[in-house]
Each structure stands twice: as structure tokens, then as C-alpha cells.
């Protein structure tokens, strides 16, 4: 599935919130038809440049008083000239600022009337191409005259859906002015976003920048789209492996996923989150839970650090020292010198992957794993260290032995939890 982009109509109001540019993938910039002048266009283009937002032209019926909201009687020939003029004005300013204009979308009433009239649609498309060339992507309704016209001319076309508009049961938009036409509840916009972005009939979603609460709405939609863009791979028929986005607190993420209906278990590893379920009852889109966490980071209950006493007497200590080019003493000192946090729990019951190991002693795992590592052996593998809770096969470099440490109990399970802090104390 290609990523569904968020486009926002911008450059329309004097006091628009610049955050909208950070949330939009594409900014449709008003270019003088219904709103906007050279100053506002320049501001919008500069904001695009600052935030890496893709710029698009947003031409309209020439009706600043009515904000382009009502259809006017304009012949195709005149329309083509108006489109070309509006888009050229934006393109000139954009080229001066070094910002490419890569999208175009007709505004308001023109969007609808052009889509119902092949001649008008063709005039709009031709005018846009005259000013911006054939390299742009045209944004418009999923079906109708605009799409047909764009296709005739060979333009890339992005089918648009409206995240902040209410729909009738048949999928058509509730007309403006009627109850439920414009959504203000972010939860409804989120549902809309999931339905539209995963339904396969739209390539881009629009949020209007001129409504109260636009920023909150846009943030909700963008977070949802970002979550839906995360890779999710089935691990057989009863598990789904998700790529863990940056910046999520690991324990809160696990708990949020585990709390979802029909999720039986959730595991966090270095780069993934995995949810487990009955194949006959898969959960609904678990990536949305990640989107919520990205938006509202939950509070973290931090526990005091756990101290594990270690005797540095492992069979690989000398090998690690040699590989690191350090005295044995120094390997032990560096290992015990810092505080680690639990990155994942897994492999064996109660085995906690701790990071980050000092890069000077972060040696790769053994080429051939041992068939038996004794319980309580302390190992290093790359940037991770950990204590084997039970005797088992294992490929980590063994540098020491933990004293009086219990990693796992049948009553409470793993003693160390995701995010817990751990220190090693050297004992001779």
C-alpha cells in the first residue's frame, strides 16, 4: 500500500497556525482566486520550505468575497486563462524561493462544478498544466470529469477523501450547512481516516485549515496516517509484527497493545512490537494504538534501579579484553560503570536485554554458540548485556557471574520489566 498523504488547504487566512505545515504532507496554497496575495503565498511557500512540506497550487473561481464557495458562470476558455494566471503567480514566487510546486487542486465550488463538466474540467487541467507543467500530481475527487481530464493529459492523479467531513451511508459527503457536515470530534476523524486510508479508494486525505480546532484535527489525522504507514507483517496466522516507531516508551507501548480487545499477548523487541491473538479473532488495527501513544505519551512509573552484584570471572573476559584492546580490569570497570535500561524481555523466561553497553566493549556474539551456558552467567553481545536466568544454550560472550540474583519467579514472571534501570556492582 502506498502511503496516504495528508493535504491541507493553506495560505487562506492571515493568522493561520504554522503547525499545520508540519502536519501536512502537501500544502494547497491559495493563489489569489478565493484568497491569498503575493505576501501570503510567499509566507506559505517559506513555511513549506522550513518544514519540508510539499507545495501545491489551490486555484479557484475568482471570487474573493464569496471565498470561492459558489459556482460562477465562466466559459472553459476563460477558466483556462484564470487557472493559468493563478498558478503562474504561485509558480513565479515559488521559483524565486526555490520551492517546487508539485501538486494542484481546484478549490471549493470549482472542485465540484468542474468535476461535473468535462469541458470545464479539461479547461482547469489545461490551465494548470500551462502554468505548472506535466510533472505535477492533480488532486481531485475519486471519480468524475476531473480525473478523466487529468488522465487524458497524462497527469498523475491523487484521489481525495475528506477526513473531517461527515459522510452519508452511501459514502457521499453530507453537504455543508447540514448537521454533521463538518466533524469536530477527533475520534470521528480518526475512524474516517482509517476507513478511507485502508479502503483502497483514496490516495490523499484533506483536512480543512480554516476551521476551529484544525490543528488538533490535523494532528489526529496525521498521527493515524503515520501509524497506518508503519510496516505490519503477519508472523503466521496468529501474530502480527509491527515496526516500532521512534520515540515510544517501551513498557507503555506493550501495555497499550496488550490492552486491546482480542490481543492475547504483546512483546516488544529491539525494533518491533508483536501482538499475539487467536487466528479466528484477530484484533482491529493495532497500529492505531501506537498512533495514540505517539500523540499522547503516557506517564511512566519509574522504579528505582536494580543493582546486580557481579564477579567478573567469565570464560570470555580475556577474549573480550583482547578484542577491545583493553586490560581485563578495564572491561570489568566499563561494564559496571554505567546504568542500563531493559530494552526487551525474551529469549528465556526472565532474560532482560540491557543497553547500551559502552561501545569500547561492545563485541559481537560468539561465532559458534555454546551448547550450555550456566545460569547467572553475565554476557555481552554487541550493544547488549544480560544475565542468563537459567542454564541454556547461548552465544553471548560470558564475562562474569551474577551473585544472588533471581531473574524469574513462577509467581510474578520476569523480575525485570521493560524500561527498568539496572546497574552492575563489581564484587571480587
Amino acid at each position, binding site marked *: 500500500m502506498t502511503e496516504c498523504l495528508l493535504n491541507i488547504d493553506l495560505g487562506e487566512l492571515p493568522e493561520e497556525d504554522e503547525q499545520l505545515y508540519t502536519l501536512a504532507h502537501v500544502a494547497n496554497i491559495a493563489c489569489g482566486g478565493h484568497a491569498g496575495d503575493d505576501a501570503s503565498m510567499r509566507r506559505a511557500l517559506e513555511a513549506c520550505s522550513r518544514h519540508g512540506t510539499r507545495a501545491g497550487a489551490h486555484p479557484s473561481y475568482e471570487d474573493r468575497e464569496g471565498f470561492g464557495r459558489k459556482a460562477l458562470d465562466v466559459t472553459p476558455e476563460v477558466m483556462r486563462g484564470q487557472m493559468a494566471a493563478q498558478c503562474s503567480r504561485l509558480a513565479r514566487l515559488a521559483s524565486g524561493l526555490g520551492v517546487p510546486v508539485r501538486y494542484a487542486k481546484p478549490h471549493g465550488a470549482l472542485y465540484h462544478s468542474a468535476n461535473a463538466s468535462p469541458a470545464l474540467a479539461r479547461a482547469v487541467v489545461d490551465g494548470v498544466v500551462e502554468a505548472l507543467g506535466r510533472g505535477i500530481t492533480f488532486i481531485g475527487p475519486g471519480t468524475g470529469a476531473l480525473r478523466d481530464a487529468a488522465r487524458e493529459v497524462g497527469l498523475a492523479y491523487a484521489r481525495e477523501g475528506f477526513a473531517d467531513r461527515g459522510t452519508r451511508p452511501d459514502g457521499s459527503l453530507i453537504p455543508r450547512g447540514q448537521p454533521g457536515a463538518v466533524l469536530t470530534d477527533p475520534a470521528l476523524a480518526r475512524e474516517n481516516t482509517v476507513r478511507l486510508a485502508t479502503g483502497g479508494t483514496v490516495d490523499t486525505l484533506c483536512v480543512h485549515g480554516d476551521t476551529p480546532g484544525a490543528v488538533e484535527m490535523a494532528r489526529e489525522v496525521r498521527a493515524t496516517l503515520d501509524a497506518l504507514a508503519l510496516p505490519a507483517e503477519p508472523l*503466521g*496466522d496468529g501474530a502480527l509484527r509491527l515496526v516500532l516507531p521512534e520515540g515510544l516508551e517501551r513498557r507503555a507501548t506493550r501495555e497499550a497493545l496488550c490492552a486491546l480487545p482480542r490481543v492475547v*499477548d504483546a512483546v516488544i523487541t529491539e525494533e518491533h512490537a*508483536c501482538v*499475539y491473538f487467536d*487466528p479466528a479473532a484477530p484484533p482491529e488495527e493495532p497500529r492505531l494504538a501506537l498512533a495514540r501513544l505517539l500523540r499522547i505519551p503516557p506517564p511512566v512509573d519509574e522504579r528505582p534501579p536494580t543493582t546486580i552484584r557481579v564477579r567478573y570471572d567469565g570464560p570470555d573476559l580475556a577474549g573480550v579484553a583482547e578484542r577491545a584492546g583493553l586490560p581485563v580490569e578495564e572491561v570489568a570497570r566499563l561494564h559496571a560503570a554505567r546504568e542500563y535500561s531493559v530494552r526487551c524481555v*525474551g529469549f528465556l523466561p526472565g532474560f532482560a536485554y540491557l543497553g547500551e553497553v559502552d561501545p569500547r566493549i561492545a563485541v559481537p556474539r560468539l561465532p559458534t554458540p555454546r551448547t550450555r551456558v550456566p545460569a547467572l552467567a553475565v554476557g555481552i553481545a554487541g550493544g547488549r548485556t544480560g544475565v542468563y536466568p537459567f542454564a541454556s544454550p547461548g552465544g553471548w560472550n560470558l564475562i562474569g557471574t551474577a551473585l544472588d540474583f533471581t531473574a524469574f519467579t*513462577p509467581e510474578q*514472571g520476569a523480575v525485570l520489566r521493560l524500561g527498568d534501570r539496572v546497574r552492575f556492582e563489581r564484587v571480587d
Partner: protein
Amino acid sequence: MAGWLEIAGVGGPATVQDAGRPGQMHHGVPTGGPLVPELLALANRAVGNAWGTAALEAFGRLELRVRGRGARVSVDGRAFAVAEGEAFTVPAPENTSVRYVAVDGGLAVPEVLGGHGTLLVARLGGHEGRALRPGDTVPLGEGGGTPEMLEPGDALDVAAPIRVMLGPDAERFDPATVSTLLTGAFTVSPASDRVGMRLKGPTLTHGDEGAGTSRPMVRGVMQVTLSGEPIVLGPDHPTTGGYPLIAAVIRADWGRLCARRPGAPVRFHAVSLEEAREAWRRHVERFRSPP
């Protein structure tokens, strides 16, 4: 009156196993459960137990005796009555990897982390967290359920292909290797146990040294070691690992694969997620619907 099962002799590894302990993977505890769920269901239902009641899972011969009461005993669904104090022998499995001995009322070992099964690596669950030895006594629960004879049908057909879903790391193997997996003739390696089943056959080469970091695992996934040997993770698998995963055996076929003895042939057939779910629904209907 409750009784107990006395272990008089063991000819191979035997442990207490039940339906498993789902939901503990985040402690590093795999779900466990029976190597061959269909046979556990057959054994239990034949003495009136729920399909996943704790029973003996044996790789070899067992000599047993019931004390304290008479009992209905079933071996893989063949039920018989045993008088109080009577000794009986369960021969080693011949056509399957393991055999299940269920007693009416089940084996009343303590529940640990939501299950009764034995996890040897952590010395957890079952009877003292270990394999059974002569002289052990295992308490019995209260029987009284209605026996029902289940038919395995083709669930354990040794000639049937094993259904897999390709991925999630299929892109780390070239298409020729994926095709080798789906066309090659494999056999079960003797170096197989509840942790994983190793397969002998064509080498599944890949240039992947394994992710330096650990990734989530689940029973049924097929990891491929650097030497190109596929290993299908079993019920007591490590919960995380680093080798790339070429495919996953669908849940409905876990028993079909794990029932095969060392040397038995294995072929794989790719199915979609929808086919896997449909197969699982039929499996549940057949073996797990409540009595």
C-alpha cells in the same frame, strides 16, 4: 475420591502438558502446550475431560499405576478402565512422535502462570518443572465428564503437505530459495524436540547473518540458520531470536508437522492468511468445541 498416578517406569522423556499458557510471552515464557494438540484432544475427550486438560506427553514407553481410585485412562483416544492399584504399560509411540496418556479428571498439578504444562528450560510447571522419573506420583483431579470419541481424520496424515504462510522475512531470501522450500523434499531430523524441529533436506541459503538484534518469535515460524538449515519453532521455543524467518507453519498444521517422527518426509505448501484462518476455524470446531 481423588487418587494419584504412579510412574513406575519411563522409556523416554515424559512430561505433564496441557493446552499451554498463552499470554506470558512478555515474561520470556513461550506458550508451550502439546506437541500434537489433536492427540491430546483425542486422549482427553475419550475420558470425558476438556480437550486441553493436563495429561502425560511421552516420547517413550511408560509403566504406570493408578492409586487411590480406579480410573478411565486413554492413550491417544483409546480408552480403557484401570482398577485401583492395577499396573499397566503404555508402549512407546510407533507412528507418531509422542503419545498422550489422559486420566479422567486430569493430572492435578499446580497451575503456574496460567498453565499446568512443563517448561523444562525454566524448570517451570508440570511435576516439579521436570521430566517424570520412576517413583514420581502425580495427583489426579475429579473425573465425571462425558467421554466422546473424536476422529483425527486427515489432521495427522503423514503424507499431507504442511501448510505455511510465506514471510515475514521472505524478502531476505532470493526467490529460488523460497521455491526450494516449496518444492523440496525434507525429512524430520532426529535433533528435534519441544523447542524446535530441525529439517534435513535442501539447503535454504541466504546471505543474512541474522539480525544483530532479537526479533519476536512464535510457535510454527521457520527460522533458517546461517548453514541454511530450517528449524520450525516448537511449543517451548525461545520467545525472541535473530535468524530470518522464511515462512510460518499455520496453526492448524502444528500437530500435523510435530506428530511426524525423525526421518518422516515433510513437504510444504504455501497458503494465504485467509486460508490459514479458515483451516484454523475448522480445526477448532473439530477438536476444541466444548463437550
